[in-house]
């Protein structure tokens, strides 16, 4: 049961910024309307961040991982999240075994 000081600092930083985003609306209320263009750009933030996050693991590791990412993306069109995770994991294991 240890807590690393840098880990604690990271957790505190994450907690503070997350709480700020969540209570910000209480001060903005909905008096401020964002320009549509800016709102659209803000809407794209989660997808853009998540895509960037998986890049090393999904696109810059090897063909097996890239293929497994493709399988997961297609599965995600129809299946619930847990099924997508199960399929992605299985595909990664299979492609790694096949491609070495």
């Amino acid at each position, binding site marked *: 049961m240890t807590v690393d000081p840098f880990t604690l600092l990271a957790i505190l930083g994450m*907690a503070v*910024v997350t709480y700020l985003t969540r209570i910000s609306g209480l001060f903005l209320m909905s008096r401020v309307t964002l320009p549509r263009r*800016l709102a659209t750009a803000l809407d794209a933030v*989660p*997808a853009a961040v998540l*895509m*960037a*996050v998986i890049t090393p693991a999904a696109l810059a590791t090897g063909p097996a991982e890239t293929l497994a990412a493709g399988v997961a993306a297609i599965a995600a069109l129809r299946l619930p999240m847990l099924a997508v995770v199960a399929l992605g994991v299985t595909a990664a294991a299979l492609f790694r075994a096949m491609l070495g």
Partner: protein
Amino acid sequence: MALFSDAFMTVSPKFPAAPADEFRDGMITIVPMIIAALPIGLIFGALSAQKGLSPLEVFLMSAGVFAGGAQFVALEIWTHPAPWLTLTVSALLVNLRHVLMSASLAPKVARGFRPWQRALGFFVLTDEIWALAEQRAATRVLTPAWYAGMVIPFYLNWVIAATAGAITGTVLGDTTRFGLDFAFPALFIALIMSFWKGPRTGAVLAASALAATGTYLTLGGAWYVIAGALAGVLVAYVTATETDETGAPGQ
């Protein structure tokens, strides 16, 4: 405004029931979300343990940050010692969408909630909680009792599942053997696809992937997250038109 029109336009009861009934109602509402979040919490804890986080650290993060998406992102870019500034910035980026959610829900709790109830209630404003609260607010008055009934089990579920996953996680052994290390990317791909709104989303993803790959292969570190995010958002801004109907987060 919405309150008045709802009173005349829906047949649902407008006035809140007794607090105990409201609380129970909230608990019933959250059941499906709890079932969905339980295994995700266990996976989060287990993978945190793989990354070298102690159960206590997993507990602190889950209880203090309480944001599944941001926590998974943090784990993916986690190294030792923790790059705390990059982790904080990426948590901010991942959670920026909460600004819009919070702004849209704020007027609906302006009267029924005391200030401390608002401050505490919005601490746990995840995507799921926000969506269910908006759904409820469309036909009924939001009460602190209903909100608490929904949020308390959901919060405890996530914190306990993640911590339990961290305690039992190390028994998983070498995750690459069964492709388990790919659970993260697969989970994110599922999340990414849920944000899909057409070809313009494709352009955003392509820009993000290109910038992230380039940065990852040249600069290294965790800069690829910020580079990809900026490239994606820039493309979204450029391809957006003034007639877009979007603005509020979709439901």
